[in-house]
């Protein structure tokens, strides 16, 4: 504990900018020397993809090597650079504080993206994990709007995702790709990447229209009843797709062009976080929380409960549709079985693990479940014992998830941490 306290003290003056610089340095070290020198002298056959987790679990003999690698490449450079650059990043952060917030946020995001891009660029396996994790983040945040902020228990998210995935795949295949299902492309293929955002939005809109099917009959119901209606909706979507041979039925739909590389998904994720953050902190968001806590009371306080609930539901479904569209274009194959009860369990696990009513919580939940799922891959069956166990413990000790009821405060996150200057 003494060490932890000291550690916290030492690094309390480090601003976010320094941490990002430190991470960038670490990734740069890995990029330039990781394969040729560091992993070579540690006896590793390659750069460990997920901080050595895969190697450690597969070959216990390699544990020291992998830990050594993590220390040399990540821990030491990050801490060192973060601490040593604090002397100039603090004034920089102070200057940025005086500028508009968006400028500072974009600057930080660019730096973060560059780091992520470099890290994921080292290995394509990392790349696909990062892409799928980002998609999970969109999914988790969007379900948090319904299950967290609105306080319902909706199970139809995989259904919304399926609608988004199928609508956007059908559109891209129809418009921009030569395939067996819809024949030759209607539009020149070069236009594809430019048309993709509109296609995704169309998928999102289709999903939110689909959500009306759940929202309208479930106006008067809450809790368990809504859960059952939404669960039914999920199965309806799945069976409908299975029986629609035009879009492949149970065989699925494949051959989507690769319109979803890392930068595109990253931009969508940031837009999603930003828009949902604004939504839940707006008056509508407050109304949503009021409806969650007491519907009758909020009704009497002039909150239009019906409209609020509908908007939130459609809004969450829209983002699930976007996530579905991105997912379809990453895997380049979808079948109705993908959007079933397993997916629901995964989404619910991410949102309840991370934390209700919190965007940060959703991000934490999505990232940790995804990374855990990948890192424990060598354990095969035991993976499915360990992850549920962790979930159970989280539910026992933190019933609302790891980080719940907390909002992002960009200003606070990015501010300068020089105590003397602030006179603390």
């Amino acid at each position: 504990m003494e060490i932890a306290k000291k550690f916290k003290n030492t690094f309390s003056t480090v601003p976010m900018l320094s941490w990002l610089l430190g991470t960038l340095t670490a990734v740069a070290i890995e990029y330039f020397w990781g394969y040729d020198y560091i992993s070579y002298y540690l006896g590793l056959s390659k750069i460990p993809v997920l901080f050595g987790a895969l190697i450690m679990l597969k070959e216990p003999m390699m544990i020291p090597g992998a830990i050594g690698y993590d220390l040399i490449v990540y821990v030491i450079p990050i801490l060192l650079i973060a601490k040593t650059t604090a002397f100039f990043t603090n004034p920089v952060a102070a200057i940025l504080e005086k500028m508009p917030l968006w400028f500072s946020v974009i600057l930080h995001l660019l730096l973060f993206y560059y780091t992520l891009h470099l890290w994921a660029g080292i290995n394509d396996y990392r790349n696909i994990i990062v892409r799928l994790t980002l998609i999970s983040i969109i999914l988790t945040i969007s379900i948090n709007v319904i299950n967290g902020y609105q306080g319902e228990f909706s199970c139809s998210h995989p259904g919304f995702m399926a609608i988004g995935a199928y609508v956007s795949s059908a559109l891209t295949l129809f418009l921009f790709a030569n395939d067996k299902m819809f024949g030759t492309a209607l539009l020149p293929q070069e236009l594809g990447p430019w048309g993709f955002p509109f296609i995704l939005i169309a998928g999102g809109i289709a999903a939110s229209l689909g959500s009306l099917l759940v929202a309208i009959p479930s106006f008067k119901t809450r809790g368990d009843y809504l859960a059952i209606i939404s669960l039914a909706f999920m199965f309806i979507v799945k069976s409908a797709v299975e029986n629609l041979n035009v879009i492949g039925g149970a065989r699925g739909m494949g051959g989507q062009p690769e319109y979803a590389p890392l930068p595109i998904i990253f931009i969508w994720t940031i837009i999603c976080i930003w828009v949902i953050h604004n939504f839940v902190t707006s008056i509508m968001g407050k109304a949503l929380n009021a409806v969650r806590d007491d519907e009758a009371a909020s009704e009497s306080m002039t909150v239009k409960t019906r409209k609020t609930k509908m908007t939130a539901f459609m809004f969450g479904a829209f983002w699930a549709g976007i996530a579905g569209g991105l997912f379809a274009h990453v895997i380049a194959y979808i079948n109705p079985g993908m959007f079933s009860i397993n997916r629901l369990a995964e989404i619910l696990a991410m949102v309840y693990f991370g934390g209700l009513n919190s965007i940060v919580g959703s991000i934490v939940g999505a990232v940790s479940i995804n990374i855990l799922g990948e890192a424990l891959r060598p354990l095969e069956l035991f993976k499915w014992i360990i992850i549920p166990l962790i979930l159970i413990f989280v539910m026992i000790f933190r019933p609302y998830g790891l980080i719940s009821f907390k909002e992002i405060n960009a200003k606070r996150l990015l501010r300068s941490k020089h105590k003397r200057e602030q006179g603390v």
Partner: protein
Amino acid sequence: MRKITVLIIVALAFALAFSSPAFSARKTVIKIGINAPMTGDIPKVGEGSKYAALLWLEDIEKAGGLEVGGKKYEVELVIEDNESKAESAVKANMKMITQDDVLAIVGPQSSKQAVPAGEVANKYKTVMISPWSTNPATTMDRPYVFRGCFLDPFQGPVVANFITEEFGYTKAAVLYDVASDYPKGLAEVFKAAWEKKHGAGSVVAYESFTTKDTDFSSQLTKIVKSGAQVLFTPQYYNEVPLIVQQAKDLGWKGPIVGSDSWGSAETVELCGEACYGLYFSSHYAAAGAKGATKAFIDRYTENYGYIPDDVAALTWDALKLAQQAIQDSGKITGRIEKDRAAVRDSLAKIKNFAGITGNMTFTEEGDPIKCAVIVKINDNGEYEFYKSSCP
């Protein structure tokens, strides 16, 4: 602060001291990836694939490595679990190709995973042999993707012909899972073949259910009432016993015929005597096998305590194919991209490969031309060779 420094130094010292291969050069190891469903819906399939692969590795190790161009190379298996999920199969393939540097991949078994995973393998120009996937899309327009089994458009007519010749029936019923790609495809192909033979309307009942259903009584009642003489149900081992037992309870007297998905060892174990005397089309028959097939079956049974199902046999063949392709490529350069391309070229050239599931020659698409076997479940619950049908 000092404590941390000390800790880090100690850790580093440990790291260097214990990583025995430290400072040694990276040597060329031939790695073969196995992408199998170890967890999820059909773990038995994953287990069969894994065991067959382990037996294969044992052979290679006994021989002191795989000999390519006069030099022996150490072989390593990379077994990845695809959780019976498409995205997990994609990730597993990506991991094996970019991280583990595998020379060839065997798997995934089900088409649901093999179709998207094949996309990855083809994109990264790595040979992938799916032993069990019957969906045409798996290998279509993918020069690097091959398969070890025949396709549904071949199997459907085989079953239809067999029933006609064996029993002389003209009215058939079909019960299949509409939510699963393989049964649905096969049911359609069978229906088309049957109606071509006996005229439109000769499939008197065409009933479906959805994955994880366990009660088939309403569909089976319709089938019994329809006056069908034979029931065709291309389902997996977890559904076949339920279907067969419920059909018998509802008064079904005719034969029930299945497809290669019945071939798992579990089918008879779960079904018991109700399944004795039934027929299905398959890749190979365990009882009454001869030669190399028998040797494989005996070894497998001895090691793992049960008779290998067709997945294990096909996986074995796929591995043998990969082995021969690697040996035929003549040289391992250590430059993985080049080696992978060489393996692909020699695999496409293989002619009349003598596998334990029959002789194979690949078509342009990477699909093998091989015979199907009609298997009878005999009174001891063994899968007995009954007839063979070649294209």
